């Protein structure tokens, strides 16, 4: 087979030399048409493939350099904070630290609970009831992040000497967001209520955050 092909090939070429001058340009022309039709010849394909593979390699090599900027293990694994709440009187709020961030633990008074429950859900930007934001049977314990959901300042109002805003909860003096006694956003630029972190009562007087 090979021999005969070679022979044919040679035969064709000798024909060219003998004067079929138009044969070669014709072949070129059809090649060009092929390229125009598919938009891709073999060299283009190789270029695209090589650049594509190299690009994937660069992206892969970038992963460690991007990942190193994530919190390191000693930061990200700070998972739990336990707090004894037995000494917190009604009307009092304490600030505790969980994952480098402050958390408000607020012992609500009867009046504050009544105020929170009196609000119609339709008046809220981020509708949630006090029940939904506290543990069952423990609606007097409001545990929220002390981090404004706008840009992360610590709202004022945990101490009775600080202003609490017109809704009686907290007010963020950075950009003017006001929260009610259930820690819900009522006015200002913050998009959502103060975040309730994951926590549970491990005894009637101790909560574990995280």
């Amino acid at each position, binding site marked *: 087979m090979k021999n005969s092909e070679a022979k044919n090939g040679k035969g064709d070429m000798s024909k060219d030399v003998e004067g079929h001058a138009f044969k070669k340009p014709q072949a070129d022309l059809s090649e060009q048409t092929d390229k125009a039709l598919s938009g891709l010849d073999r060299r283009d394909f190789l270029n695209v493939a090589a650049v594509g593979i190299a690009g994937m390699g660069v992206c892969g090599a970038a992963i460690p350099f991007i990942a190193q*900027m994530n919190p390191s293990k000693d930061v990200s694994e700070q998972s739990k904070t336990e707090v004894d709440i037995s000494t917190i009187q009604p009307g009092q709020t304490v600030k505790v630290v969980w*994952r*480098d961030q402050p958390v408000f633990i607020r012992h609500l008074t009867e009046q504050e609970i009544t105020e929170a429950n009196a609000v119609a859900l339709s008046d809220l930007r981020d509708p949630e009831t006090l029940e939904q934001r506290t543990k069952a049977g423990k609606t007097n314990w409001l545990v929220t992040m002390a981090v404004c*959901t706008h840009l992360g300042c610590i709202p004022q109002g945990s101490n009775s000497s600080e202003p609490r805003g017109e809704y009686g909860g907290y007010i963020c003096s950075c950009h*003017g967001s006001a929260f009610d006694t259930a820690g819900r956003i009522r*006015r200002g*630029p913050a998009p959502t209520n103060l975040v309730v972190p994951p926590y549970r009562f491990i005894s009637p007087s101790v909560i574990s955050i995280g």
Partner: protein
Amino acid sequence: MKLSPPPYQPKNAFTRWLDDRLPVIRLWHDVMGKGYLVPRNLNWLWNFGVLAGIALTIQIITGLALAMHYVASSNEAFNSIEAIMRYVGFGWLIRYGHMVGASLFFAALYIHMFRGVYYGSYKAPREVVWLIGVLLFMLAMATAFLGYSLVWGQMSYWAAQVITGLFSVVPFVGEKIRIWVLGGFAPNAATVNRFFVLHFTLPFVILAVVGLHVWALHRQGSGNPTGIEVKKAEEVVPMQPYYIAKDLVAIGVFLLIFCSLVFFYPNIFTDPDNYIPANPFSTPAHIKPEWYFWPFYAVLRSFTVNFMGIPAKLWGVLGMGLSVLVWGLLPWLDNSPVRSGRYRPVFRCFFLLFMADILLLGFCGKQPAEEPWIRLGQWASLYYFAFFLVILPILPLVEKTKAVPSSVEEAEKKRTDA
């Protein structure tokens, strides 16, 4: 027609030898020497680009010295700066120089930018000069923020918290991005470290981009207050010695102001709260950025209610981002065929109002987040965006401009006659 400057001619055997191998003297000649022809009618407002460059140089030199003593750790950062102020030889001078230098850098940048708006410097064929300038402005803002955080006082810490909080508006992954940027759940030891690395690196990036800025400018040549392109050799003078000399006078005045501030009013621009060490568990009652960010801060705070289905927080961040980016759109927002504000009486009124509006915005940004400042800031923000997005595009359709002289020479003759 492009004017042809005198080519560089090496004077002796050594400079001939060097020019064949590394044409650095030729480069200087072409860029800052006799080979760069500048319109002869530039006013003092054209000195502020060079002054911004001088301020950048001051920042890099004082910054390098400070970096030799600064400790990038959340426990040590604040104390190391107090040690620079008290124990390091001339540390107080170098640090005050860096603090005042940052303010003067922005002052020079703002005047340089307002000059560009008034005289239409951004118009064709200098759009790329302008775009690179806006990029430089953003790089300077990022660098200034990072440097301010490094002090790790109360304002530094809460600036880091609030500014990285801007990332949290990205839908779905915002909080993850914020934590990634900080390297923790709140600004911490990792944050100081990376901010220091970036604050050290960015000025050199800025330097490189300044190179592009000047390159793009010299491709078309400097503009001038008439907004008419120079056409004749009589309308230009070589950079060296004429504008080098003029720049040196401006630099002298600039250094006089710089030294007066460093020696007599070093803390005039800073917030006393930043001399309290960072406390992650107490936000100061009234946090505000440095003066050069007040207008943008006021825009951020102007969005207080959700509308069009977008939360107020996202509006605020988008508004603040747009208030910077919109500068980059100027060449396409202002289609007036007349370049200079000198021949645009209506534009001139709106421009003056725009400058007053920025001052008002800045004033509102400085105030606590209370009424009437929020409401006032909202009106000022409205005019700010209206100037860019409504007034500038509509003006060319309705404004009757003054007759523009046919050449720089004629324009200046008219001015001296009048």
